[in-house]
């Protein structure tokens, strides 16, 4: 009887997770294996596929576009993610200083983070426009423009090989509220007695930040970091719409290159090789970050759910 009940439970369990199991086979593990297989083929999707061995990978290594899209994606990641995490933390800490009206401010900061897609990309494309966009007049008004012109002139943003990629980094900062909201929740979860006992010991603001706030936030920083890096390797819509990868491939993000090879030039096998390289890069980065985390992430032993 007991055994029967257990069997029934196991059967119900498998039934419950069956949609995911089917989806996992059909849309994750199957396609991953298929794409590995296809990456050794040459296939334009019309004529039958032909086996080319390591041909796609050999071509990949010789393809200047691969290095260009890797360079663009890496530079973007290296600047956009730390800036986003840093500003997110700064805003969250400022909000947590007993500021009045925090609910309204939090809403406004968080709002851009939930907006995405074509409409946002078009909005920023117009903001950066040197003829009618709003950004350059503001920069002139604040006398920031001459400084930027010293760095690289003219400051035509998406039309400038130098300024195009920074434009994407600035746009990403607009959505800083996504990281902020998670920090803020974590900040509010730090037990106040930690700060009280530090106060009794006469700790300074900085040392409280350094020795209480940062360690308590480190698991959340790790989460934001991993999600941010994975996200930055997936930038597509904004580059497709705002610049189409230009000028002169200055904003050719990895996935835009992948999309073009596969769906515009119909190089399915080559596209799969690109996809596999992306997959391996993301795994390596995630593992590196996770591995480094034991050195800087602090897990309180008795962390409770509530």
């Amino acid at each position: 009887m007991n055994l029967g009940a257990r069997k029934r439970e196991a059967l119900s369990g498998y039934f419950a997770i069956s949609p995911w199991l089917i989806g996992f086979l059909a849309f994750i593990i199957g396609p991953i294996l298929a794409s590995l297989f296809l990456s050794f083929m040459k296939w334009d999707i019309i004529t039958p596929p032909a086996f080319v061995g390591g041909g796609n990978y050999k071509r990949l290594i010789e393809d200047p576009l691969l290095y260009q899209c890797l360079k663009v994606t890496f530079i973007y990641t290296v600047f956009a993610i730390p800036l986003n995490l840093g500003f997110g933390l700064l805003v969250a800490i400022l909000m947590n200083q007993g500021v009045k009206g925090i609910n309204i401010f939090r809403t406004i900061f968080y709002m851009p983070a939930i907006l995405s897609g074509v409409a946002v990309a078009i909005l920023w494309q117009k903001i950066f426009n040197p003829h009618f966009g709003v950004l350059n007049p503001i920069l002139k008004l604040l006398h920031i423009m001459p400084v930027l012109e010293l760095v690289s002139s003219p400051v035509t943003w998406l039309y400038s090989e130098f300024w195009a990629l920074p434009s994407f980094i600035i746009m990403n900062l607009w959505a800083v509220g996504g990281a902020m909201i998670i920090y803020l929740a974590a900040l509010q979860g730090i037990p106040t007695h930690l700060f009280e006992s530090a106060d009794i010991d006469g700790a300074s603001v900085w040392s409280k930040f350094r020795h209480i706030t940062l360690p308590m936030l480190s698991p959340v920083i790790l989460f934001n970091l991993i999600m941010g890096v994975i996200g930055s390797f997936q930038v597509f819509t904004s580059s497709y719409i705002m610049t189409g990868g230009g000028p002169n491939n200055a904003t050719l993000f990895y996935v835009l290159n992948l999309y073009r090879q596969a769906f515009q030039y119909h190089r399915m096998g080559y596209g799969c090789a690109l996809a596999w390289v992306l997959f391996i890069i993301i795994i390596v980065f995630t593992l590196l970050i996770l591995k480094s985390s034991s050195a800087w992430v602090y897990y309180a032993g008795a962390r409770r759910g509530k």
Partner: protein
Amino acid sequence: MTHSKITRRRIWTIAATIIILVGVFIILIPLFWMLTTSLKTYAEAESMAWLPRKPQWNNYFTALRAINFWRALGNTLLITFLAMTGHVFSCALVAYGFARLRFPFRDPLFVILLATMMIPAQVTMIPIFIEFRALGWVDTFYPLTVPAFLGGSAFFIFLLRQFFMTIPTELDDAARIDGCSHFGIFFKIILPLSKPALLTVALFSFMGNWNDFMGPLIYLNSPEKKTLALALQDFNSLYAVQPHLMMAASLVIMLPCLAIFFFAQRYFIKGMVITGVKG
């Protein structure tokens, strides 16, 4: 001493408030500019006038006609609601299995599920396209809706499972004594008690599909099947130099997301917090 401490504390709060106000101002400029530009005449938009002299509400009619708004809206709503239904039901069922039922290999399978959250969709995009093409599903809505019914999103499953774990198991036991089956418990206890979490998933799913660009770009070709995102992109490549019309169309398409966000903000925050802080 305490007195100076209180003063210092107050100065600190005021400084923080000022910096935040500056930030709020910066965050709002793009949206404010979007709204004012959408109401300008072409000449005003071109000459960078700060405000329209007379609001041109007509821009909205012109822009929406140009993107064939009603048809694109119908397509987008159909895809969005089908996918949302699929996500909510299939992810809840799977999450229930992982949260409440015991079966061999449950924990390793759950670890695999978590690991799949790290796999970007672009890695599997090409073989999945080939799969759907073999099924003859290109230029239909199936590729954009069917996967949602098959577990769809590991993130949603994880979020719901975390929520289900907080429901006391005593309720299940009591129901079981009353003769309730596993799926009876799912429908009569777990689902009704999880409305906030289910709503969170529904809203995330809605936003994701409403804004999705790559999926429709790959799968939909015929003009009468285009979604709002695709229609907007087409319009932009034709009318890129008409900022007032582009801003009007973009604002209309953003509006449902803004509205949902203002009315259901706490569900988004809850969803982010469950997965970000407690995960």
